[in-house]
């Protein structure tokens, strides 16, 4: 990267930071400090606004740069990967969004606690929500460090460390001062920038190939050095059977995990009704689907225009495929157009990281304050306003922890963390959510079993997996205690989460013996499907 590109990219970063801080200040004016305002932004966003914000929350830099890079390096296997991220939204639309909006107030645990009315259920759900958020957050922070360093051309450890600290500080400021309102607007702005950038680049790729997708694909296959194999599955996930099972495990985690991500669920509370929640998911499905389709064009475009070898030389993981493609499409290195496009792409990636980490920090601070602190300290007299103060402090604490973990994990290969966060969400959060919304017999005992029965296997299996020990790329490469062959635990832990919930319920006392069980189920169903008495 030349000096011009770097200074322009830094200038655009600066503009975005100033804009987001302005949004935060604007959102923080006339602040009341009520939980409704801090956690949900007052529940008055329109479906379109929320749809953009959901898309902004979901489409991470890993999607923008990572997936297109994966396609540029491995062709079709990158497409296989992104389909899971997209199809998952059908689970959200069909069985989660409306019912969660009707039954809950601020967090995932609210939905469960509303039916079970037991503190241990809320605590279990709070613990699993915070775990999922922290896993996802650390992945994003480490990714941010290496990505920004790569984009501005400073590969030294110092630039990475300062990026992690800077991103962490900014996200804490957004969340602690602006709450949900500021976070939502930052996500909306980011989604517009990301969609705009992706659309412009896709248009330039299509113009380059005169709209002929056939020519684009055959050029990509030719320039990749793999020929027709590039357009078929198998280059990345087609190794031995362990690697293949690993991908099936990841696919399962992706498609079921999205509906259990706390930062996605909390977005449904920002609109007034379940109908608005449905319409916001429809908006986000349109945006996310369009975005992934463009990502596919950009990935094959990078392979066709630059060649796979050039992409791999620049970054082994392929993360610079899109920025390099932008440079070429704008007129090549040294040209004004290329410089501007490269800097714009770098700035969009930076905006993307900031918006995503702010959303996760907000969701985890809500879980800490509302689910964990709230249920442990209620007896001592915790007011709603006091809870918001705790949530702001929690945001600072989570930010500091994320910065610390991000700096510690700086050199480690943490790409598996995103898959792990999805697997934990699919194993611990989704089974309990579906059981309590749809299963009449389900009990509090089953809920607790379901959460821990999904969360513990997911975490333990990863500790025993080859990503932690035993291989040259492992976190502890010196020792070998890996007993579980797969990198992603989803294939085992998701069924275990469902099984544990079922076992915990059927081995407990029969619901007929528990007073009010049938009435609580009836109340949950009526609330879920009609919205009666919804917050």
């Amino acid at each position, binding site marked *: 990267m030349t000096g011009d590109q770097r200074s322009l990219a830094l200038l655009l970063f600066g503009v975005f930071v100033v804009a987001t801080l302005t949004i935060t200040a604007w959102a923080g004016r006339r602040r009341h400090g009520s939980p409704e305002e801090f956690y949900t932004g007052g529940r008055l966003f329109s479906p379109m606004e929320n749809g953009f914000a959901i898309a902004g929350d979901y489409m991470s830099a890993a999607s923008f740069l990572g997936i297109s890079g994966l396609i540029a390096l491995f062709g*079709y296997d990158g497409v296989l990967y992104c389909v899971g991220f997209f199809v998952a939204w059908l689970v959200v639309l069909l069985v989660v969004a409306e019912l969660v909006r009707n039954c809950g107030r601020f967090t995932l645990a609210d939905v469960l606690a509303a039916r079970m009315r037991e*503190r241990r259920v809320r605590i279990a759900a709070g613990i699993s929500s915070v775990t999922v958020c922290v896993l996802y957050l650390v992945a994003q922070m480490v990714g941010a460090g290496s990505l920004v360093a790569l984009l501005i051309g400073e590969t030294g450890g110092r630039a990475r460390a300062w990026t992690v600290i800077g991103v962490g500080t900014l996200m804490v400021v957004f969340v602690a001062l602006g709450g949900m309102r500021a976070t939502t607007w930052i996500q909306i702005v980011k989604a517009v920038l990301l969609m705009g950038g992706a659309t412009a680049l896709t248009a330039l790729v299509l113009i380059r190939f005169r709209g002929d997708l056939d020519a684009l694909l055959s050029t990509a296959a030719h320039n990749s050095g793999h020929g*027709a194999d590039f357009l078929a*599955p198998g280059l990345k996930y087609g190794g031995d059977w362990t690697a293949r099972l690993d*991908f099936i495990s990841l*696919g399962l985690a992706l498609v079921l995990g999205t509906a259990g991500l706390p930062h996605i669920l909390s977005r449904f509370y920002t609109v007034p009704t379940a109908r608005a929640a449905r319409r916001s998911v429809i908006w986000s499905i349109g945006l996310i689907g369009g975005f992934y389709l463009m990502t596919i064009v950009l990935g094959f475009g990078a392979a066709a225009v630059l060649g796979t070898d050039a992409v791999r030389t620049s970054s082994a993981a392929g993360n610079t495929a899109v920025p390099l493609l932008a440079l070429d499409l704008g007129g090549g290195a040294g040209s004004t157009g290329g410089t501007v496009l490269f800097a714009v792409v770098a700035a969009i990636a930076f905006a993307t990281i900031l918006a995503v980490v702010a959303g996760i920090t907000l969701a985890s601070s809500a879980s800490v304050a509302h689910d964990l602190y709230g249920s442990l300290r*209620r007896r001592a007299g915790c007011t709603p306003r006091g809870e918001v103060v705790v949530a702001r402090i929690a945001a600072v604490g989570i930010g500091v922890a994320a910065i610390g973990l991000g700096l510690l994990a700086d050199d480690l290969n943490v790409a598996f963390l995103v898959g792990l966060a999805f697997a934990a969400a699919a194993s611990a959060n989704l089974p309990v959510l579906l059981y309590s919304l749809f299963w009449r017999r389900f009990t509090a*005992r089953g809920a607790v079993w379901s959460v821990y029965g999904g969360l513990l296997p997911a975490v333990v299996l990863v500790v025993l997996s080859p990503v932690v020990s035993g291989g040259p790329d492992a976190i502890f490469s010196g020792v070998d205690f890996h007993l579980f062959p797969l990198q992603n635990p989803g294939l085992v832990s998701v069924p275990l989460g469902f099984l544990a919930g079922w076992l915990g319920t059927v081995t407990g006392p029969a619901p007929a013996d528990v007073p009010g069980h049938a009435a609580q189920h009836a109340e949950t169903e009526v609330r879920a499907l009609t919205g009666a008495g919804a*917050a």
Partner: protein
Amino acid sequence: MDMHNARDTGAARREDPWYDALASGWGETDGTAEGPPRARPPAAQAVYTEVHASAAFQEVRRRYRRFVFPAAAAFLIWYLAYVVAAITAPQLMARPVVGTLNVAMAAGLGQFATTFLLTWAYARHARLRRDRVALELRWVTQEMTRRHGR
């Protein structure tokens, strides 16, 4: 209509035992195993049980489940079949269809197409077959709860 509805929610919320149970008295349940649920006004719960048993609610519930369960099963099976086929039978997936378009690419685009299609079908089903009845039930339930609350 929406405005009216929103105001109604606000008014009902203050008298809603569910809301209170969450907002204040929640921590009063101790965490011991299978403790008795917190005492709640039986009248409010009776309202929900009554609405739950009503023909109108059972119809909404049936319509929702009859669309969602088969649809969810269908797309999950279709997605898993796609992933398993790509992983276990790459030769089959590499077969050309038209030009550079092979089975794998067609199936991948098919996943996008079915997702968009099912989204549209679900939205249409919910709008035409559920929304109106659900809104009426919400209104009725809140009216009944309020009367019992007094």
